[in-house]
């Protein structure tokens, strides 16, 4: 092709365009016996051969910028191209508002791409303007309410620019739409953690009541049970007044393995804190009984786990013989049971 006169300006290949005639394309150096060799289309090869040429010459021009757009269209995961585009945005003093429109379009089309979200963050930082971000992320979440990149961007914007107002309301809207949206429950925790915190007893009360209300609506929703557990960890499940009664009451209408597991957690907390509000022996017996119930009947997929919890409880709070995992005499203790893991292990 080096002999071919490059006069075509309407060809779709950069190779054939007269405005690019001065640039010698640089083929990819895969070596003589390539591996994982991709059968690139003619267009792909053309664009990236030109990209390599630009990169090699460190060219900072409008045509280079236009070429990055083509390259991104062919492979939006090429982080080298995105980096180069950022260099050009600054070197050519490009209109960043226009760039935001472009980024918006790419994200709408490929919402699970790491590079484009990072690029958006960079441009928002350069503009120092987060004013469109929450609405934009809400729009992406309306298409996929659990998009991890979207939530990451949202949390970054909120923390960086201190935009906490209205977020709890937004979370509640999302939970109205889908009470099982675990990302929304996480966002609830995020907002409260960074604003009021959970130490205030009126906040904690409100959250516990809100969560119990959601549990009554959908008793088999694991997210709500995990949230209830999560917010009470610090204070202790058994220390929250009336909780055992409220949860026990739910058993008739809202029984689920999650309720049972929650009771195990509560009993375990009572044992751990040696709470005088509870009969320690009763807590111990009930905890073991429920572990057995879960392992053998209600949550058998986690049999190994519940049996372990049971053994641990017996080992810590039981009165008597040491507990082992098998009915055989225990093997002599040795580190040979350990999976070989340390870098220094043979």
């Amino acid at each position, binding site marked *: 092709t080096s002999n071919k006169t490059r006069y075509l300006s309407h060809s779709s290949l950069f190779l054939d365009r007269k405005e690019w005639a001065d640039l010698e394309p640089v083929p*990819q*150096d895969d*070596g003589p*016996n*390539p*591996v*994982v*060799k*991709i*059968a*690139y289309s003619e267009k*792909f090869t053309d664009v*990236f051969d030109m990209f*390599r040429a630009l*990169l090699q010459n460190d060219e900072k021009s409008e045509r280079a910028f236009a070429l990055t757009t083509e390259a991104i269209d*062919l492979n939006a*995961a090429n*982080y*080298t191209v995105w*980096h180069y585009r950022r*260099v050009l945005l*600054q070197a050519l003093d490009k209109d960043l508002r226009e760039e935001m429109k472009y980024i918006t379009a790419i994200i709408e089309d490929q919402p699970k791409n790491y590079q484009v979200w*990072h690029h958006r963050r*960079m441009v928002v930082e350069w503009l120092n303007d987060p004013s469109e971000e929450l609405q934009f992320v809400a729009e992406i979440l309306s298409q996929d309410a659990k998009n*991890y990149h979207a*939530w*990451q961007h949202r*949390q970054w914007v909120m923390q960086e620019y201190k935009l906490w107002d209205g977020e709890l309301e937004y979370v509640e809207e999302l939970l109205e739409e889908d009470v099982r*949206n*675990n*990302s929304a429950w*996480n966002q609830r*925790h995020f907002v409260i953690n960074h604003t009021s915190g959970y130490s205030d007893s009126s906040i904690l009360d409100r959250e516990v009541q809100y969560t119990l209300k959601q549990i009554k609506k959908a008793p088999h929703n*694991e*997210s709500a049970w*995990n949230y209830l557990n*999560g917010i009470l960890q610090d204070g202790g499940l058994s220390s929250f007044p009336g909780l055992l009664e409220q949860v026990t009451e739910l058993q008739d209408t809202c029984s689920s393995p999650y309720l049972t597991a929650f009771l195990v957690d509560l009993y375990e907390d009572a044992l751990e804190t040696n709470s005088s509000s509870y009969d320690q022996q009763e807590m111990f017996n009930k905890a073991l009984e429920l572990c057995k119930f879960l392992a053998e009947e209600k949550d*058998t*997929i*986690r*049999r*190994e*786990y519940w049996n*372990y919890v049971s053994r*641990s409880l*017996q*080992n810590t709070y039981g009165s008597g013989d*040491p507990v*082992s*995992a098998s009915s055989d005499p*225990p*093997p002599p203790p040795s580190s*040979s*049971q*350990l*999976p*070989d*893991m340390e870098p*220094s292990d*043979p």
Partner: protein
Amino acid sequence: MEEASPPLRCFRESHSSELFSDDGVQTVTSKEQQHYHYLKKGLRHLSDAYECLDASRPWLCYWILHSLELLEEPVPAAVASDVCQFLARCQSPTGGFGGGPGQHAHLAPTYAAVNALCILGTEEAYKVINREKLLDFLYSVKQPDGSFVMHVGGEVDVRSAYCAASVASLTNIITPTLFDGTHNWILSCQNWEGGLGGVPGLEAHGGYTFCGTAALVILGKEHMLDLKALLRWVTSKQMRFEGGFQGRCNKLVDGCYSFWQAGLLPLLHRALFKEGDSTLSESSWMFEREALQEYILLCCQNPGGGLLDKPGKSRDFYHTCYCLSGLSVAQHFGNKDLHNELILGRDENRLAPTHPVYNICPEKVAQAIEHFHQLPVPVQTGPTPSAMDQS
């Protein structure tokens, strides 16, 4: 309780009385052969459908080579040498590996390239890695708060710490300051659910939880996690119906979490053992091994070769790698001294064991560590750790 509508025909009891016996003649579909051909071909040629992975070619090398080693299929010496030469072309002059020749260095293809070279395990493979420059690269992406960006001018998340810890420990380039603050940053990713998010504040996710936990194991700081909360979270991620694992609470099962999630159980077992826990099982990881194997073998295999997320999805090399890795974790408990195998189905389903931290075979880990520990730790020569590059 009365059925509201008549039971579906396919659920009727009468089926069992019409069940054929198999005439004593088995039709053997040796799926391993199918997978082998899919992998062997992919190691050389990929269709244009793979243009989207043009910035991840070292990953393709690793996913395929690791799958082959799990299937105990050898790689011919000529192919191995070609992989070495290709990865050498992916290495950046400033250190680390990029997604293809001429691309900037990035921690993910760096992780993949080092793993692939360690699987090959030849002198030629080890020699590809420029350790001095690799150390410079790691320092160039290190952040003041202990985290790492994935590439210069790139994003931070917990994958980067794992990629950095993995390559640094295998190639013996860990200096006293390289991981300053890293363990604390990773710990701040553990959230109210018990698992870890990609960055502090985010939802607990199997992929990120694996990366954070494995990185802490390498750094010797796994005991600083709330291990009980993490154990509760990960065991809850096994789906009671499907048998496979979900990546996040209330999301769908996916074959790749067979490794990211189930692979946490060996790590936690060891961590708890080191804490002095005497109530650990002596025969099994704390998940339903048979159910996971059933999910992978019955739902995640493409009859033409390769494995996948769930029925209805297309095969790809990423899912092939991680479904097989998860199957291996489920099959093998313990280590070379104390080993308990649970192979669902035919003996031919048995895969080689995999190392739960690096996800390459344990012998290859040991061999690489032995090789690189004979070399001195390089001295950092590049620029000192910088705040995130503005471009």
